[in-house]
């Protein structure tokens, strides 16, 4: 893939990452379990952006975190806060609306091409 296409794709994906992460944090997750969850759904995520993102979400009070020392090694669990839940639902609405519009736009193009 050319560098330009690469950077454009990254740009497209960047905004969706937050939404993807929020969607999986309705149940408590630690860093690596979150990566696995996302990868299972086919979302390939750069881990060097994910961990800082979690801390940023915590700072924005969208998620809360707690250390769990009961397992073999201590793990930091993240879960959506009330504000996070609200924000996630709104973001999801927004995303679905936008992707429908964009789909309509792109679909139109495709039909034009074939006509």
């Amino acid at each position: 893939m050319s560098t330009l296409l690469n950077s454009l794709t990254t740009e497209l994906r960047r905004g969706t990452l937050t939404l993807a992460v929020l969607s999986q944090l309705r149940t408590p997750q630690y860093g690596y379990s979150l990566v696995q969850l996302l990868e299972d759904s086919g979302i390939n995520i750069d881990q060097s952006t994910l961990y800082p993102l979690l801390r940023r979400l915590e700072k924005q009070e969208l998620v809360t975190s707690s250390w769990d020392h009961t397992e073999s090694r201590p793990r930091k669990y993240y879960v959506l806060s009330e504000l996070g839940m609200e924000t996630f639902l709104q973001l999801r609405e927004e995303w679905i609306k936008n992707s429908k519009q964009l789909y309509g736009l792109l679909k139109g193009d495709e039909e034009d091409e074939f006509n």
Partner: protein
Amino acid sequence: MNLIEIYIQEVTRRLPEKSRTDIALELQSTIEDMLPDDYNEEDIKDVLGKLGNPAALAAGYRDQPMHLIGPRYFDVYVSLLKMILPIAAAISLISIAAEFFLDFNHDETLLNAMLDFIGYGIWKLIEVSVQVFFWLTVVFAVIERVDKDKEQHPLSPSLKPWTPDDLKSITYIPKKKAISKCEIFGSLMWTAIWATLYFYADQLMGIYRGGGEGLEFKIPAVNQDILLGYWPVVVVIIALEVGLALYKLIIGQWTKRMAIFNTVLELFATIVFIFILMNPNLLQQEFIAYMTDLFSISAAQFKNWLLGGIMITFIIYAVISIFDGIRKSRITS
């Protein structure tokens, strides 16, 4: 194991003290999660490779921007730089010129002194520019880091979001009426030059002769005592010229009022200088004698020729300046 610790250290040393322990713990736990149960060094390298460059990871954790001046302040920064640099340069040049002429001594040849002045002037200009650039950049870099507002839109002069109403507070300046910074700088420079020539006429204007060590000042052309007798009125003219230049700088375009100011100033200055030149004792007798010998003409002829020439130059320059000002102030677009 060792590689992991070094990696964590490489990340946390770039972070603020208070968040280091927590991030280190979390990273440690994450890396161990990523490793298989029975791992070797290759596995560790693989995992650390996925986490990427420690500098990039640390940058992700840090809230501070990875640039000096971001989009919000860049526009204001550049306009301030453009405004302050020429002003600072002009002030430093004028002060150097003043200092230089106050220290001017008779033993030094004018040419050598001039070369000294140019060299020193260029050096000082570079120094002032670097200083202005440095301090302005530092101030903006600090503002960028202190401002917690995540707003990315460029800052408007009113410090509020831009609206079309902001355009009303900006005067529209047609190109033909505009006064360039160069023009203002040039006129200030010209004032500085002629003022220096006036106050140090006996040291600068006269006969030079090529000697052993460059140019040698031989005979002064004018009677400095007579010339300096007019100093109060000359100071008034200097003040008015500087005032006009600053007025031009502020308004930025020719207006009717400015054209009137310019006309009055040019007329006044021309009359004063013609009056000074008419003084019969202005020129040194020695100088007149030298020149009449050189060109083999009579003293009266020489005086008429020299002073007449200067006066005509003065008048032509004044007339051009007056008409140019009036013409530009009349342009409507």
